[in-house]
């Protein structure tokens, strides 16, 4: 919405203050991570990278990062495959029943993760999936589906359904139509969904607190322990790395979107 009309000074004041409130705490961890002290503070005399060295030299931190990465990759794969196929099916069938299916897929966004975590704790107990890589991956994969369903559905809304008909009319099977016509056209939407599902798993803590303990020890779990036990500047270094990583993923998403709708 653009035009000659501009917001008044009061609104602009609040808006600026809000954005500073949103962004400042995130940026403040950058100088804190480079402090020359052993405790959380701004740098006094010089900037120091020793907390980064600490972090990258620590078996425990690297192990947690490694585990989180694998879980995020595997669960993203689950979410992308299941979510994409489901979104395509719902789009093509477009019945009332598929509206319900789509609503079902959005449940994990609405129901608090604490409730799911409690249920999963019991459920995985009976399935013997507690504290196992597979268990965490499945849980993250299922809760990542809504992100993929949403982005892929959005991409499909701009897809000409006659292209699908044209392909079928020329004799293409469903698999061929998917591979050669539909998927290439909605690839940017799938990539967006994958990025969000990845960030979701990478950041997820509540489920991990319940269904993992010693064998599976993800990065968020490690940060959580750090915040509760010893607040030291290494934590700030981790935070900065995470922020940089997230911003890079968002930039990637932005680039994909720019290619999709120039």
């Amino acid at each position, binding site marked *: 919405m653009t035009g000659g009309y501009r917001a008044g000074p009061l609104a602009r004041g609040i808006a600026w203050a*809000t954005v500073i409130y949103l962004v400042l705490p995130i940026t403040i961890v950058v100088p804190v991570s480079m402090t020359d002290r052993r405790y959380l503070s701004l740098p006094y005399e010089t900037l120091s990278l020793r907390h980064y060295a600490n972090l990258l030299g620590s078996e425990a931190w690297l192990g947690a990062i490694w585990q989180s990465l694998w879980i995020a990759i595997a669960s993203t794969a689950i979410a992308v495959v299941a979510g994409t196929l489901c979104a395509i*099916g719902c789009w093509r069938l477009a019945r009332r029943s598929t509206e319900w299916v789509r609503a079902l897929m959005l*449940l994990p966004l609405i129901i608090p993760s*604490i409730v799911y975590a409690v249920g999963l704790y019991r459920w995985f107990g009976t399935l013997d999936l507690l504290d196992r890589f597979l268990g965490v991956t499945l849980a993250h994969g299922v809760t990542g589906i809504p992100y993929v369903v949403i982005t892929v559905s959005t991409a499909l809304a701009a897809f000409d359904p006659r292209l699908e008909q044209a392909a079928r009319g020329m004799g293409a099977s469903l698999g061929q139509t998917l591979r050669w016509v539909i998927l290439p056209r909605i690839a940017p939407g799938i990539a967006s969904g994958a990025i969000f599902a990845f960030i979701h798993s990478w950041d997820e803590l509540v489920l991990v607190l319940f269904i993992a303990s010693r064998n599976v020890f993800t990065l968020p779990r490690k*940060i959580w322990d750090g915040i509760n036990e010893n607040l030291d500047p290494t934590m700030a270094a981790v935070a900065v790395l995470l922020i940089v990583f997230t911003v890079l993923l*968002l930039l990637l998403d932005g680039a994909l979107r720019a290619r999709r709708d120039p």
Partner: protein
Amino acid sequence: MAREAALALPAARRAWALPRDAGWYALLLPAFLLMTLLYVAPILQVLAISVTEPAPGIGNYERLFTNPGVQRVIGTTLRICVTTTAVALLLGYALSYVIALASPRAQRWWLLGVLVPLWISVLVRAFAWVTLLRRQGLVNQGLDALGLIEEPLRLVWNEFGIVVGMVHYMVPYAVLPMLAAMKEIDPRLLAAARGMGASRLTVFRRVFLPLSLPGLIAAGVLVFIFSLGFYITPAILGGGKTLMAAEWIKLQILDLVRWGLGAMLATVLVVAILVTLAVFSRVVDLRRLFGGGR
């Protein structure tokens, strides 16, 4: 006019004939199975536990009316959620208003300021707030250095800290639906109203506010239901002293092993959220919100 053999479709495919659309339904299957077996089933089990443990019956739910501990947790949760929602809506509304009226170039920058925080890890953000707000934190140090305070202020590990952290998390969620609604308001309408001699305040009250109201309600519903079950931020910034529903549930189950009670409050949370959504279902379109916002 015999067709060349090479151009016929593979014979195998002609042979089996499934009902129309069967293939498309098959596409729904993986997600549907995952979702029902690994998501809906565990949650239904929670509902079941709340009426079967420790003894079958609605004993756990009676605690809602008899147990002061439970009542206190619910009171705290509602109080914090309402405060959070109100503040997040106020800040988010002003922000969306300014973004909606900004030039497209400026809009991109404003949106960056809203969307990047949205995707930064909750843990990282809670950590940042602890760094800033704790007794020896940067805020207290700064105020002390300026000579403005004698004693460090108690900014965190209480309700104030929780609200600061939660509002920080919720403002982007408030902005997205409101901005979507405001972007559909024709700016010429506002300019025309100004041109007819209305003051800025009148234009806002009579034209802009009513038109953006659906977005405001949607944002309110969204922020409120997200706040109700929030765990990490209240747990870290509350410091274990101020208990909200989610942390209380965790305490019951992981530390006190009182499954029935924990499951009961979890059920109450889910029911409260679904009822809220159902009541406002006409104004809240989650799919559009998430699809259009990012």
